[in-house]
């Protein structure tokens, strides 16, 4: 016979939350508030009541560690069984791992950077509720960096390109795109950082970046990446909430905050969107079994959910959709193709490999992009095919001009003409600075004194700061070894893969 146990008595969630966050705060007595919190006034943001901020998750420290421990337990069970069963052999193809190489080189170091900066906010924001939310996020981000390194280290035993991701993040041309975005955010003030990373990146765009990425991992047999991805995403939902809470809080505190916030949204939407171009190329071209095109993901996660759902909500506060969003919508049928062309042309200098899409993949691209693929992009790939059929492989043998703001090679086209490269330039202190789009030019012109300091990989090579004047010198300085780079077909990964599947 079973007896029904009454539920254990405990404090209601709301009360527990209030006791364990706000009620643990105190007023400083022997230093002034200004000395204790020196960074919350210079950006012009006005806050009247820090207690106006509450975390909708009502997360307390005991609950936080309990759930995080459970998430880690589930993840490490998957990692162990995947490694023990030689799970890497059941991937769709070794070429799939190129996407994971870009992930560990480009994204994992950003998790660590976020960990650092949220630790800063956990100390310097004035309200106890946002401080505690920032502390949880800081610990989350460190967990993400660690679990990604653990997960992906299993592939490093068998495949190239995984070995020096941290050094590469600081040095390699395509990785300066994500690195410079975070550097830009971390050198802004605390409120701008909240709008840049918590709101524009986490709330507006991470769905678009991570969810299809993890679905792609699932579809291509990469169980560990799917699992760390979803494990991280469960934290990400909390980070999105922090972003949304931050913006609403700042908007509700004072009307004078509205134009400042709008300006930051305008800047950071475009900054984060431009970085996501790398994901567009990955989704459209790098998954042997593609799961969703960039266009479809953009429509689902950005146009429907953000422009259709969120921005009408923010209109209540006088916030409009981000400046230049029309350009992003206008290029959704082009972005992935243009980015992958860059990667394909320059992969001799990258720690991943590329290849011309197969007939089957091109048929999928035609279907996904009926208005653009056959007309503008298929001819390029067919030309590569002809060159390769004759035993060649075309790489671009020069260094590209980079956009001064997003640092992506200048290969995007004009909104009105997909056959013409888009170039913008600005003059500042007697010098000319080049940008790839109206969005990046607007950002440059808004803060030229910041962006003239950009560490542009191509300029650095020409200035002699990257190991020497030749391609082998630079690759050596990057930590890229023969076989990590170039064409996938016939590469070290491809050769081992075929050997293991004989």
């Amino acid at each position: 016979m079973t007896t029904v146990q009454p539920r254990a008595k405990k404090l209601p969630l709301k009360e527990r939350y209030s006791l364990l966050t706000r009620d643990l705060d105190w007023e400083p007595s022997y230093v002034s508030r200004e000395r204790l919190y020196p960074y919350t006034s210079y950006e012009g943001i006005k806050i009247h009541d820090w207690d106006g901020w509450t975390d909708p998750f009502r997360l307390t420290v005991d609950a936080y560690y309990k759930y995080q421990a459970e998430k880690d337990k589930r993840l490490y069970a998957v990692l162990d069984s995947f490694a023990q069963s030689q799970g890497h052999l059941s991937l769709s193809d070794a070429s799939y791992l190129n996407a994971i190489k870009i992930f560990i080189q480009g994204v994992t170091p950003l998790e660590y950077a976020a960990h650092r900066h949220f630790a800063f906010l956990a100390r310097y924001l004035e309200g106890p509720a946002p401080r505690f939310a920032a502390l949880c996020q800081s610990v989350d981000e460190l967990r993400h960096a660690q679990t990604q390194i653990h997960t992906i280290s299993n592939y490093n035993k068998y495949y190239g390109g995984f070995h020096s991701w941290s050094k590469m993040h600081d040095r390699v041309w395509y990785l300066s795109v994500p690195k410079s975005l975070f550097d830009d955010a971390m050198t802004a003030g605390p409120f701008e950082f909240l709008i840049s990373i918590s709101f524009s990146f986490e709330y507006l765009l991470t769905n678009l970046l991570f969810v299809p990425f993890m679905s792609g991992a699932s579809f291509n047999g990469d169980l560990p990446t799917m699992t760390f991805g979803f494990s991280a995403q469960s934290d990400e939902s909390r980070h999105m909430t922090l972003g949304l809470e931050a913006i609403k809080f700042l908007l509700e505190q004072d009307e004078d905050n509205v134009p400042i916030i709008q300006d930051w949204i305008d800047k950071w939407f475009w900054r984060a969107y431009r970085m996501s171009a790398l994901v567009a190329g990955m989704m459209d071209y790098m998954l042997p079994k593609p799961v969703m095109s960039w266009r479809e993901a953009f429509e689902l996660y950005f146009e429907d959910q953000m422009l259709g759902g969120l921005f009408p909500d923010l209109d209540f506060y006088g916030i409009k959709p981000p400046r230049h969003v029309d350009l992003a919508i206008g290029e959704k049928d082009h972005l992935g193709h243009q980015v992958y062309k860059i990667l394909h042309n320059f992969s001799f200098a990258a720690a991943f490999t590329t290849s011309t899409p197969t007939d089957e993949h091109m048929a999928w691209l035609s279907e996904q992009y009926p208005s653009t693929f056959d007309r503008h992009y298929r001819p390029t790939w067919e030309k590569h095919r002809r060159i390769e059929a004759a035993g060649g492989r075309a790489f671009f043998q020069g260094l590209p001009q980079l956009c001064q703001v997003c640092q992506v090679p200048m290969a995007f086209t004009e909104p009105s003409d997909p056959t013409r490269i888009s170039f913008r330039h600005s003059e500042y202190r007697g010098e000319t600075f080049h940008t790839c789009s109206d969005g990046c030019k607007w950002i440059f012109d808004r803060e030229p004194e910041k962006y003239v300091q950009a560490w542009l990989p191509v300029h650095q090579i020409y200035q002699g700061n990257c190991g020497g004047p030749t391609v082998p010198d630079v690759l050596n300085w990057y930590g890229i070894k023969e076989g990590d780079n170039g064409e996938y077909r016939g590469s070290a990964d491809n050769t081992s893969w075929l050997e293991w599947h004989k």
Partner: protein
Amino acid sequence: MTKTLRQVGIDLQESEDNRALIEAIEGDNPDLTIRHLPGLIKLQAPGQIVINRQSVEAKLGREWETGEFQLAIVSYAGNFSEWDDDQIIVNWEH
């Protein structure tokens, strides 16, 4: 204030543990649409999505804390307007 009917959404991991949770959400939200993507389930509904502890416990056959929802969620679109011991509500506020 009139209630908005703009779509809200919740993405959940597709797993054995989450099946009961998804059934409970389906039961409490008649206008729910469900889309399967590899590894995850995307739930969308006009206006709001409600998750009731009691419904989840009835499907699951054990006690369930609303905090456990954190183990299931991958992403969402909307705003958590309520999250207490008995209920979670995602909606748009304005």
